């Protein structure tokens, strides 16, 4: 990348160097960010489908999964659409593995990290563009290896995403051969991808902040990505090593983890969680950063307690290294260690609480604009609160004796990773889409998607707390095999129905995303979008009415249920169709340079940002990132490059 080329060609530069160097082996951080986004979104479909398959099995055990009856009865996994126990274990394992390593990490860290860091600190690109490109293609390699596991004999890894040894390391115990090895190999490869990304982010941030961009003028989302990168730098090598040891155990018959030959199974757990707990914060910190970024923009108000937010993140980053044992309270490790980990774990709740209160403080006295990104940020805050509070139960090692390995923990981490990270992810996509693709995603479609996702997210995951309190173990194939769980089966059915609705709820997002990226605004396509979104809502309404009429355990609706359902169906379909007809803007229209009136530097760059990001000279920063509604200024925002009344300069950094 030479700066003269960047300047001369401006916005059209990315059409320069031919297809391969522009779209495939690009060195441009913005293209790499988009590549990570595509990778993550594609894998999200795979991860989501796996979840729906095992949810089906949990609600209606050992029945044919709808839509999969065509599979041959010779199939190992789903003969004629029936889920076998090993396939179930595999689906559970791979749902988690894919969502964590190939959806949330590529999008939150890979996409937003790449896209935002250089633009928001006023740099022309990452410090090491080639390393950056490698980081993406190594992630693709990891994804290919991970996907290949589905097609090998014996099926993919089926020992849980935590891969507890020796189930995962001795093939005879699980009946899984190549799959588990590919799983470990893929994680080994992916750890390198993250490592390359981390090194790049850290170097870029330390060395390439533009003039005036002091540490305390760095936007919070960049701070969060910086802290994430440090955690990644230190945590991913542990995953890589553990993965390598698993491969050695499986392929070269070493016995790190096999007690039958003198190994130590708890060593795997210690390694996995020593990586795994910082990993949890790798998944949530960028989400916190995005929320901290969106709230001030849409409240038109400085973030409350900027420095407290930064210190809280640093505290979380430090503490995340000394809490891993809370995953192992019941593992058989010395109970005295359990005491120590209980204490550190409850201490890590404090910085999270500080962040929450500061988000509330930001709302206080604001002038709140309820755009789609803001709705997601608000959902993030309240869902993160639920996820954080439910963590208190498990943090208490005494309560954990009972709650451990039940659906309570499943509810807890989905509130954090889906309610937190994924809502932030959707909000972030819609917020930065104009800068990323030069077009704005549609607000009306976005609202339909948001409300459906918000409602059905809660209907899927809230009842899991109740299942957990009832003692429902996680990762069991058939709850009806247990007498004490039978009374709760209607809850399982409700969760599965809601999960199917949650899956359907993503359709408006898919339409919104593709229509905007590819500028599909033909009349027929708009009608199709309205009709499909309407039908999704109508269909969900029909089923909900039928369930209210018949109860959860009745498979067929009676005439009464059908009539009411049909009325609801028609009403909802028409309502959504007409709402969209009235409110949908032209899909894929060019976005203005700064559609949200935001201060940070990415909005100073032209839209779409050219190679090299900024014009001939780099912007010089003269104020903090969140100086909204400054008294005496005519607009309620001003770019960070503008000088601020010295009276306010001290307060706002």
């Amino acid at each position, binding site marked *: 990348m030479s700066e003269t080329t960047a300047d001369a060609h401006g916005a059209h530069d990315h059409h320069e160097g031919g297809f391969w160097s522009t779209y495939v082996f690009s060195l441009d951080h913005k293209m790499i960010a988009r590549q990570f986004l595509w990778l993550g979104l594609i894998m999200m479909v795979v991860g989501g489908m796996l979840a729906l398959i095992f949810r089906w099995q949990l609600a209606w055990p050992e029945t044919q999964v709808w839509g999969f009856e065509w599979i041959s009865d010779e199939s190992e996994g789903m003969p004629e659409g029936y889920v076998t126990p090993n396939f179930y274990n595999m689906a559970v394992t791979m749902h988690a593995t894919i969502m964590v390593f190939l959806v949330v990490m590529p999008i939150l860290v890979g996409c937003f990290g790449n896209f935002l860091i250089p633009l928001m600190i006023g740099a022309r690109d990452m410090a090491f563009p080639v390393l950056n490109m490698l980081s993406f293609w190594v992630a693709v390699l990891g994804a290919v290896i991970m996907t290949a596991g589905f097609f090998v004999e014996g099926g993919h890894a089926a020992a849980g995403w935590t891969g507890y040894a020796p189930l995962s390391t001795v093939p005879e115990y*699980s009946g899984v051969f190549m799959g588990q090895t590919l799983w470990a190999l893929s994680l080994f490869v992916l750890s390198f991808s993250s490592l390359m990304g981390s090194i790049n982010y850290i170097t870029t941030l330390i060395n390439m902040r533009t003039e005036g961009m002091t540490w305390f003028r760095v936007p919070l989302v960049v701070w969060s990505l910086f802290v994430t990168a440090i955690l990644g730098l230190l945590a991913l090598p542990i995953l890589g090593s553990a993965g390598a040891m698993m491969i050695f155990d499986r392929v070269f018959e070493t016995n790190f983890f096999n007690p039958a030959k003198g190994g130590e199974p*708890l060593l795997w757990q210690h390694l996995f969680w020593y990586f795994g707990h910082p990993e949890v914060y790798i998944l949530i910190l960028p989400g916190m950063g995005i929320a901290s970024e969106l709230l001030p923009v849409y409240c038109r108000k400085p973030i409350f307690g900027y420095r407290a937010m930064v210190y809280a993140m640093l505290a979380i980053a430090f503490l995340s290294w000394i809490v891993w044992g809370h995953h192992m309270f019941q593992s058989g490790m010395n109970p005295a260690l*359990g005491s120590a980990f209980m204490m550190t774990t*409850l201490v890590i709740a404090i910085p999270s609480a500080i962040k929450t209160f500061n988000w509330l*403080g930001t709302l206080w*006295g604001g*002038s709140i604009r309820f755009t789609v990104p803001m709705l997601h940020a608000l959902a993030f805050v309240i869902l993160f609160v639920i996820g954080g509070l439910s963590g208190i139960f498990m943090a208490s090692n005494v309560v954990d004796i*009972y709650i451990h390995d039940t659906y309570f923990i499943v509810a807890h981490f989905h509130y954090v990773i889906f309610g937190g990270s994924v809502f932030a992810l959707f909000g972030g996509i819609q917020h930065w889409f104009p800068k990323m693709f030069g077009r704005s995603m549609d607000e009306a479609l976005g609202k339909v998607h948001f409300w459906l996702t918000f409602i059905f997210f809660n209907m899927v995951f809230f009842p899991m707390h109740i299942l957990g309190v*009832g003692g429902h173990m996680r*990762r069991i194939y058939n709850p009806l095999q247990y007498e004490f769980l039978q009374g709760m089966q209607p809850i399982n059915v409700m969760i599965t129905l809601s999960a199917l609705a949650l899956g359907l709820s993503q359709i408006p997002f898919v339409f919104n995303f593709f229509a905007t990226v590819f500028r599909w605004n033909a009349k027929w396509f708009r009608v199709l979008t309205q009709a499909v979104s309407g039908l999704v809502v109508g269909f969900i309404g029909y089923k909900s009415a039928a369930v209210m009429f018949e109860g959860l355990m009745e498979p067929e609706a009676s005439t009464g249920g059908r009539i009411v359902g049909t009325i609801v169906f028609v009403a909802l379909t028409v309502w959504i169709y007409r709402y969209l007809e009235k409110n949908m803007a032209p899909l894929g229209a060019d976005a203005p340079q700064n559609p949200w009136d935001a201060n940070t530097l990415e909005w100073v760059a032209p839209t779409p940002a050219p190679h090299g990001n900024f014009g001939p000279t780099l912007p010089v920063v003269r104020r903090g990132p969140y100086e909204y509604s400054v008294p005496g200024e005519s607009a309620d925002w001003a770019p960070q490059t503008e000088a601020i009344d010295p009276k306010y300069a001290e307060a706002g950094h």
Partner: protein
Amino acid sequence: MMSWLPENISIEGEEIDFLFYISYYLTVVVFILVAVAMGYFIIKYRARPGVKAKYTHGNNVLEILWTVIPTFILLVFILMTQTSWAKLKLAIPQNPRVRVEVTGKQFNWIVRYPGDDGKFGTKDDLVLDNQLNVPVNKQVFIALKGADVIHSFFVPQARMKQDVVPGRTIPLWFTPTKVGKYEIPCAELCGFGHSGMNGEFIVHSEEDYAKWRKKAWAEKDK
């Protein structure tokens, strides 16, 4: 939410349920406070023409308050938890009334009862698959062993759970207080037969327990 907890049948379970309730009330109250504040702010501070947002960067007194108050509450919670944990996990009983050895083996619980000599590994041991018989109101001491992969011994009604790790013997003890038949599901993914790995946990009255022992050993000697 509490009505979803299965009935508790052990002395240790009371301890666990108590802390569960504390966590429950604590978190529900905090959640309501946060949700109400948030809802109020969202409605009150929605954008309206002519109304500008407040220009403020925060408040140090508030920062200190909302750091110190949660810290204090959590410290109390830590102390309460630690007291219970020490009672439940650190004070290994010296003279338990009933000793059993349970081995997790894909996909069964193998239960070994000592004979009248009270010792394991002698000829008069009784070995049953998936059936744990104990007398009511007596402390039961279980030595948990693993034969292959990691399992987790779970009696939901007694609130007891402990992972079973091959290569180790892990002690677990509790005192059941109610006669009845319960289940011992495995709570840690242990392979394709994990689901359905389920034992019977039978709590006998004192007399029934004596009768059961007599009958069981008689059948064994046959």
